[in-house]
């Protein structure tokens, strides 16, 4: 094995093979975060159920009962829950990934490993949580006697879109966070503000047609509409919006990997 150490110049080398070789480490770090979280809490895994469940109840009462927003002919609880699944994955995984580099700063200054592993491990933890909450959705659909259609086959694609967007935004923020500690204030703001501009608590059919495309530049619109479309079958899929969201997400992902690799060389120096 021959390693050359010299200053890197110009556009970063992606070196994704190195990340792939370190996949076991990614698994271990994700496993550590999950195990530690459940060892530290008394009701452990139930938090993955309780959080979306309580949010769903609050949203159905506030937006469904009090504000009487249209629910696209499905129970308001189901309407919000189908959106809360991808939304809570995004907000938790994004916030964790964004703080993953700074939060593990002591490791970065003491040992070398592909730095991309850190935010990716946080996202892997989010995926595990997502799968747990998904079980709750299955129970709900049985409870409301809702039959899934062939459209459910498209669900993994919309989740993949959500994943691409989350990784993209997460990597950008994680790398910026190292240099600009202001991100600490920006991250909770993004996840809170984002929930109001994404159709989580309401249906995107409420958005006027002429604003629809602009609104869809937020990839979470395509993700949430996609989840509702494939699970409930009631929401109309706005195709230009899905394309816009997909393009946005991939632009974000590719640029974020480059930006991360470009800045990671100074992580240990500014940590």
């Amino acid at each position: 094995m021959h390693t050359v150490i010299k200053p890197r110049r110009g556009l970063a080398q992606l070196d994704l093979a190195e990340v792939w070789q370190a996949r076991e480490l990614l698994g271990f770090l994700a496993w550590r975060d999950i195990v530690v979280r459940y060892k530290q809490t008394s009701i452990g895994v139930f938090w993955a159920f309780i959080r979306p469940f309580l949010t769903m109840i609050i949203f159905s009462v506030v937006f469904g009962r009090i504000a009487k927003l249209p629910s696209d002919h499905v129970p308001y609880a189901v309407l919000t829950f189908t959106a809360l699944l991808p939304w809570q994955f995004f907000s938790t995984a994004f916030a964790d990934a964004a703080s993953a580099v700074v939060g593990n700063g002591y490791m970065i200054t003491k040992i070398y490993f592909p730095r991309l592993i850190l935010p990716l491990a946080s996202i892997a933890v989010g995926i595990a949580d997502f799968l747990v909450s998904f079980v709750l959705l299955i129970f709900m659909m049985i409870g409301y006697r809702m039959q899934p259609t062939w459209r459910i086959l498209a669900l993994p694609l919309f989740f993949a879109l959500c994943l691409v967007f989350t990784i993209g935004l997460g990597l950008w923020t994680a790398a910026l966070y190292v240099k600009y500690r202001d991100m600490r204030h920006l991250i909770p703001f993004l996840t809170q503000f984002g929930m109001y501009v994404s159709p989580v608590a309401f249906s995107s059919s409420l958005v006027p047609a002429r604003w629809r495309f602009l609104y869809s530049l937020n990839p979470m619109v395509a993700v949430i509409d996609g989840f509702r479309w494939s699970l409930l079958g009631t929401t109309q899929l706005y195709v230009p919006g899905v394309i816009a969201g997909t393009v946005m997400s991939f632009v974000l992902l590719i640029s974020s990997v480059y930006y991360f690799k470009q800045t990671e060389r100074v992580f240990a120096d500014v940590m």
Partner: protein
Amino acid sequence: MSDVIIAEGVSKSYRLGEQTTAYNLFRERIVQVFKSSFAARTKPANEFWALKDVSFTINSAEVVGLIGKNGAGKSTLLKILSRITEPAEGRIDLYGKVSSLLEVGIGFHPELSGRENVYLNGAILGMSRREIRRKFDEIVEFAEIAKFLDTPVKRYSSGMYVRLAFAVAAHLEPDILIVDEVLAVGDSAFQQKCLGKMRDIRSEGRTVIVVSHNMATVSSLCQRVIWLAGGKVKAAGEAQSIIRQYLSEGVENDFVWTPRHGVLSAFEYHSVSIESSEVSGGGEGFPANAPIDVVFDISIHDKFPAGRIEMRLQTDSGDLLLTSTSADATGQVNHEWVRGRQQLRCRIPADFLMPGRYFITITEPYGGYDIVRENVLTFSVTEEGSLAARDQRGGKIAPLLSWTFPGSAGVPPAD
């Protein structure tokens, strides 16, 4: 024997102020962008070269010691060799699998059991799951913690913790091992075991680079030594002769520290130094029966939140002997600051320390939290006037305590 490490012209610079400024603020960056668009480009910030044009080669199956004063560039060189940071110039070729141990137990989580931490730490050090499973029993046996394998490590004594951490590291099988002072852990029996392990590693044909402040360790372990001073290779060659030169220069003590970074906040260190009324011949150290003052020369430029300076005294085996803070006498955790330039003085009493070498780590208040400046000062206490030298007593400190005798007011009867 073939060359396994070839370093050519390795340099590393930090921009003054940037090296340790914990972070930039968005606001500053925005202000900067505006400034630079209106004003002519300001001249580039002052650069500080932590390493300048360092070249060396290391053969296979060689144990090489890296020595030098604090700030000579040892840590920077280790970080570059371990790929943690990148050189500004130059090139290093490494032939073989490299493992670096700048600290043992990286990634250890207090809530996880010993077993879980072995897997986690092993993975962080670059071992595969299969490799860890294969060596698991050996690691546990080396650490002598078999009974506590399923106990969370937060319940471990510090000795057990360190033994487990070192055991994982000791079972790496790299071609090149980079070690920073990690031998300075555990009790002396365990240290002997670690030294033995290092010799095994060499006899297996692996290459080891060791940084240590302990010249006894370096001379017993290394055949060759590279001496860094001011970011350059001052001398390199056969261990014994280089160590002799190094010690004869009296460079083992650092009595004054002046920060290399710029002013980070309204708190500024001008210098931190060691003073004593009595210095034994040749500036080698202080007699054990004289007090030693640590003098903090600081300025408070503006209103600054209540805080404190912490001083940690470490022995040369790396044990933390004591921590003292500027707020200790106030009865509070933090104290208010007076504006302007001032000196704070911390007195280490006479007849208190054992003869030996000591390192002082200080903290720099940075509005809300502290920046730690490790090992900024080094000094020795000589056997002159020492209680310990009189009768070879044991212990970590050698304080002169008060004794009373029947019929006397604390004065021992004449013999």
